[in-house]
Every structure is written in structure tokens, then in C-alpha cells.
């Protein structure tokens, strides 16, 4: 385990060290202390290493992640795991806006609450939120799964494409072209697997499923009211 104190080591030095690792490296376990809310901590990782951060981080933590497992023992600012390609990002506290924005793959787990626009424009990432999500979550979500164990704020899944949303709690409102769909046995099993992978204890039978009504894919004047 390599420990880096971010009160002493500059952020660029740290990220430079992480980016310079080779595929054969033995330096596979990292602990970061005193993050002090700095931005872009452990962003742009490309190797299957483990990075654990003790404390609260700023914006874009673990952004663009590939293969790495990044755990934040604290609160995250905007855009944690934004554009994640693969690997796992886990937040043990709450996350601010736009968690996992535009994520292409991998998994982002928020054990607490995520704020507004969680999973905005997601493109294949799986997001599991132990608490609730704020308004406009899964806005224009194209692919992947958003699992919300608590409640969802207004305008959930506005202009959604083929992503799938599961919510256990209350939904304060659906966005344009987002509708409730049947929770088939197949979806229950998929959800069970997502929860297991995320290590979040929740009963898949309690969830409802939401997705696209597919009315907005091509412009149709009869659907103008739905835009």
C-alpha cells in the first residue's frame, strides 16, 4: 500500500505518478489522505489498480476512469466518475451534481444520496445509489442502468433513450418521454445482479422500472407537446 498525503504532495504530482504506472506495475494499492476537497483527484486512471481516498473530494474525482477501483470515504463534489469507461467508483458519503455524467461503462456506486442530474447523458455505465437522487437525473440517458434505492426528484429520465431506471422509493415526477414499464422477472434478476455487484442491500422486488416511451426519437409534429 502506497500512502500519499495530499496536504504535502501536489495534485499534479499525484496524478502524474498514477498516470505513469506501467501495466506490469506492482504499485497496485494506493491510499490518499487529506484530499481537502481538491478537484480531479485520481482522474484519468487506465490500469486495474485500487485507490482509496480518505476524506472529502472536489469536482471530477475518478473522472474518465478505466479499469481502476476508486473508493472515496467521504463526500464528492460535482461529476464524480464523469465519463467513466470501466472499473468501479464507490462513494461512501453523498455526491453532488452530475455523478457519473456521460459514463460509458463500469459502475459508480453512491452509498449516500446523489444530487441533481445524476447519470446525465449516461452511455452504458451502471449507477447504483443507496439513497436518493435529485432532479433531472438520467437526463438524455442513452444506455446503462440507474438504480435508486431511495427517492427520485422531479423530471426523472427526461428525454431518455435506452437506459433503464429502477427506483425503490417515491418518484416526484417523470421527464418528457419517460414512462413506467413492467418489472418482469428478467428485470428483477438483472437488478438483483446490479445490487449484488454494488454490494448494496436492497430487495429487488421493491423497485419499479422506468424507461423511454420512444416518442421523441424522430421529430413527429403530433408529439410536439411531449418535447
Amino acid at each position, binding site marked *: 500500500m502506497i500512502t500519499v498525503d495530499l496536504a504535502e504532495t501536489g495534485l499534479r504530482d499525484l496524478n502524474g505518478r498514477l498516470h505513469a504506472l506501467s501495466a506490469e506495475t506492482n504499485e497496485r494499492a494506493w491510499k490518499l489522505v487529506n484530499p481537502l*476537497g481538491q478537484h480531479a483527484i485520481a482522474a484519468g486512471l487506465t490500469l486495474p489498480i485500487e485507490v482509496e481516498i480518505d476524506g*472529502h473530494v472536489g*469536482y471530477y474525482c475518478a473522472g474518465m476512469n478505466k479499469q481502476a477501483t476508486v473508493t472515496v470515504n467521504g463526500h464528492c*463534489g460535482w461529476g464524480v466518475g464523469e465519463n467513466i469507461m470501466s472499473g468501479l467508483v464507490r462513494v461512501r458519503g*453523498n455526491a*453532488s451534481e452530475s455523478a457519473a455524467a456521460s459514463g460509458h461503462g463500469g459502475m459508480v456506486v453512491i452509498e449516500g444520496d446523489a444530487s*441533481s442530474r445524476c447519470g446525465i447523458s449516461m452511455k452504458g455505465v451502471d449507477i447504483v445509489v443507496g439513497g436518493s437522487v435529485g*432532479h433531472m437525473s438520467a437526463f438524455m440517458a442513452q444506455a446503462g442502468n440507474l438504480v435508486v434505492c431511495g427517492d427520485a426528484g422531479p423530471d426523472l429520465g427526461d428525454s431518455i433513450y435506452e437506459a433503464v431506471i429502477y427506483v425503490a422509493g417515491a418518484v416526484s415526477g417523470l421527464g418528457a418521454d419517460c414512462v413506467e414499464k413492467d418489472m418482469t422477472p428478467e428485470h428483477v434478476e438483472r437488478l438483483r445482479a446490479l445490487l449484488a455487484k454494488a454490494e448494496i442491500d436492497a430487495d429487488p422486488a421493491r423497485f419499479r422500472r422506468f424507461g423511454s416511451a420512444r416518442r421523441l426519437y424522430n421529430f413527429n409534429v403530433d408529439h410536439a407537446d411531449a418535447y
Partner: protein
Amino acid sequence: MCGIVGLFLKNPALRPKLGGHFATMLIGMSERGPDSAGIAVYHDPAGPGASKLTLFHADGGYPWREVGGQLSEALDAEVDVIHKANHAVLRVEASAEITRAWLAAHHPEVRVMGYGTTMEVYKDMGPPAEVAAKYGLAEMAGSHAVGHTRMATESAVTTEHSHPFTAAADMCLVHNGSLSNHNRLRDWLGRRGLEFETDNDSEVAARYFAYRMSEGASLDEAMEAGLKDLDGFYTFTMGTNDGFAVLRDPIACKPAVLAETDDWVAMASEFRSLAHLPGVAEATIWEPAPGVVYTWSLEGTA
């Protein structure tokens, strides 16, 4: 881009260190606002029947003591003057209204930055660390404080357009964002007899909240009313004599983070400003929800 910060101490035992913690918070927002900074600190209240005013004149050599002497003679009241850079804090054994009226009549060149019994307001150009040092922020005791750091993108760096904006006794507002209906609101408030010092949208918000409270609204009610009447992007933090409030618009594009422990509540545009507060590792930290009024009161803590 700008940065805003606010610190509200629930535990009176921390009050001697308010300025020290708050200076660190303000400096933490330097990258969001390196051009100028403004602060309002609720500090060392004036006694019963007395008032406290923070005044500004661009000339650092302005004869504040002479003005204080004239004021004392005219009102037949004791006046204490503390001169800090191009600001002065006057403690007057008379009401703020009488003092302001005398200043307006005899020294219109002096600008009143803040008035009331407790609040002191300082605004100056330069990086937040420089401004904090110039006014001795780190040494100030008190119950709560709000601040603003500015990155000038659309207009000149002047103290007139700097936050915090004050619109009533011991009341101030900092704002990150922009209002789209401020002209109409300014007219609306103008018809109700309110006067404006600048063309700034944030001043309109400050006067709007002050107007609501002057009509009898509580801090919570004024903020709730603002949600209906103010259009645009905003994260507000407001201080009153014994209260502290945070409000974001219903879309919530401007950043904000809140942290709370048994001892204090703090808000900032970014967590960086909160990172050095005592006990922050165990604090409850969350992003204030859009369109939700958050308030705290000193009642019962003093």
C-alpha cells in the same frame, strides 16, 4: 464565476475563532474569485441604544476622525472611530437612522457599506488573502459571517458592485448567479419607495428580501417568497442579526455545498473552502436541494 462562503457558529465557545476559520474559507475560494473580495462579519455588538456603521471612502487618507468629531458634536453623542484601510467603523451612541441621515446631509461622499448594531462590512480589490489581511479578518470574533470572492467577467472591479449587498440593519446578501427579472423587480420595489445605489441585480435581491422582512415576513418566509418572485440563476447566502440562510434556484446550476456539525453550519461554492474547519471529517455534508430554503437561527445559542 464567483465564490461565496458563509459560516454560522452554533456553539458560542467557538466565537473567538470565527474570523480565523472564516478567513481560511474565504481564501479557499481564491481561484473562483481572485479579483476582489467582500465580507460581512457579525462581530462585537454595539450596546443598547447605540449603533455601528461601516463606511467607505476611496481615499485611504480620508479624515475619518474629523468626521467622527463633527458627528459627535452634531448628535451630542459619543462616537468611536476605527479606521481600517479605506473603511471606517463608527460606533455611535445614537440610532443608525439618525447617523445615516446626518452622513447623507453632511458627507455625501462617504458610502455606507453596512449599518445596524453588529454587522461590519468590508469590500476591497485584490486577492482574498490580501483583503482578509488588510482588515484583520482572522482576528475578528463573532457569531457568523458571509463572504464573496469575485472573478470579474462582465464589468469593472469596483467596491460599488461588490458583495455583500446590504439593504437593512444587520442584513446582507451574497449571490452567485444572475437574475433575469431584476429590472422589473427594481421598478416594483421602486414604486414601494425603495431606493437603489447600483444597477446590480444582486442589490435588487438584497432589497427584495429586506422589503419582505420589513413587511413582517420571517427570514424563512422572505426566502420562500423569493422563490416565486426572483427569476434567474442563484445561490444566495444571507445573514441577519441572528439568522443565516441559504437558497438555490429551482434549476440549481450554481454550485453550493453545506456542512453541519453540532458546533457550526458552513456553506461554500466548493468544498475546498470547508476542508479546514474543525471536525469537518465527521460533519454532515450535502448539496443544498434546488428551491429549498435552509435557515438557522442564533435563538437559544447565546
